[in-house]
């Protein structure tokens, strides 16, 4: 940074604590920063001091933008954890800049014409620093919020990535359900026609029912209906004389389970759209 801003840097360095205290008084009662009103004052002052000290560090750094991150990221993380809304975090930064400038004006730092010229340059440097910091704070806030949302929905996301939702046209999924259905027809035929029994092999039918509903949402219910019709028809043909009631209950449960899972998966599908 050129010499013209040295005066301001020196002032900030010397009076960082005083300016930070003024800023703390301001931010802790300003109507656009209500979340600050209940924060511990010492913590707020420390934040201010860190910001004002950044000014010299940025002026000495080869890459001021990178140097700004040493402040911005910590500032953003602290405020985010304290649930301060982003607009207030940004407005607090604006107040830091204003208080810095007010302090400089109050101290009569820039009085003569030459000093006024320096003031313009110093003001530009202050604004540049603020531009960097506000950009980085906003970016960090967004990173933290999306990270939190992702964490909350991690299980759902895993299901979406590993599971079926979305890839409706996959031939493998269709193939697997077809294999399940063929196996179901064979099992039904074997148990009811050959063995003539109602033994509870139908629990295995939940595999294709759940799979189809997970894969195709509400449309997966057709698999449940197919299997329900299968056991009822098979019962009517091969198990004449035995009561229907148990198979009717089984058939109903197929449709209910398939329907509920399909309905839930539709919501997950909507969620996936939001993720996109």
């Amino acid at each position, binding site marked *: 940074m050129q010499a013209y801003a040295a005066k301001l840097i020196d002032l900030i360095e010397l009076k960082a604590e005083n300016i930070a205290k003024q800023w703390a008084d301001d931010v802790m009662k300003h109507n*656009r920063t209500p979340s600050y009103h209940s924060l511990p004052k010492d913590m707020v002052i420390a934040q201010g001091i860190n910001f004002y000290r950044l000014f010299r560090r940025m002026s000495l750094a080869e890459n001021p933008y990178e140097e700004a991150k040493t402040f911005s990221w910590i500032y953003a993380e602290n405020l985010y954890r304290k649930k301060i809304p*982003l*607009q207030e975090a940004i407005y607090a930064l604006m107040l830091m800049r204003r208080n810095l400038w007010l302090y400089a004006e109050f101290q009569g730092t820039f009085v003569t014409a030459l000093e006024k010229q320096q003031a313009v340059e110093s003001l530009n440097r202050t*604004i540049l620093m603020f531009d960097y910091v506000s950009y980085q704070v906003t*970016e960090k*806030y967004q990173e933290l919020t999306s990270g939190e*949302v992702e964490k909350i*929905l991690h299980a759902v996301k895993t299901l979406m990535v590993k599971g079926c939702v979305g890839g409706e046209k996959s031939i493998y999924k269709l193939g697997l359900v077809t294999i399940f259905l063929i196996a179901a027809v064979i099992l039904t035929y074997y148990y009811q026609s050959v063995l003539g029994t109602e033994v509870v092999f139908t629990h295995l039918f939940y595999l294709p029912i759940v799979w189809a509903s997970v894969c195709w949402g509400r449309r997966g219910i057709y698999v449940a209906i197919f299997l329900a019709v299968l056991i009822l028809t098979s019962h009517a043909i091969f198990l004449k004389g035995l009561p229907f009631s148990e198979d009717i209950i089984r058939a109903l449960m197929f449709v209910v389970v398939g329907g509920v899972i399909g309905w839930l998966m539709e919501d997950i599908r909507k969620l996936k759209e*939001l993720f996109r």
Partner: protein
Amino acid sequence: MMKAFTAKLVDLTQNNAETIARQWAKDVKTNQKTYTYHEETEAKILLQAKYFYNNFQLMFFNESPYEQAKEIFDKYAEERYKEGIPLHEALYALILMRRHMWLYAEFQSLFNIEIDHRQAVESLSRTILMFDYIMYVVTRKFWKLMKLEWQAKENTE
């Protein structure tokens, strides 16, 4: 005096909105901090800048610039949000708009004599104040929209 001088800056911006907007568009389409803009057509992003520069003067001499900012920039924020521009980029695009306005004024030697520096400080301070309001309004609107979206996600879950 200060008001007359600020008027000079506002007039200059208003009369050259198209030129300044084009310079901004060129910048925002290549700046690494606004990469979402790189894919947009120049015509589309020019509209943003023109909207900004044409409305900015309304704030400057308004008795309640903050209220005026809300009126103008709530809509601006909502549009950028719907276009899928991340907030930090939307804010940086605004920062670049301010810089280009100022650069143009400097290039036109608006503040070139000694006496003008005092007025430059005043004008610069006023411009910054307007921008503070704009950034606050835009951030608040974005944050509100983002929260609504997260709530929708959680409800869906």
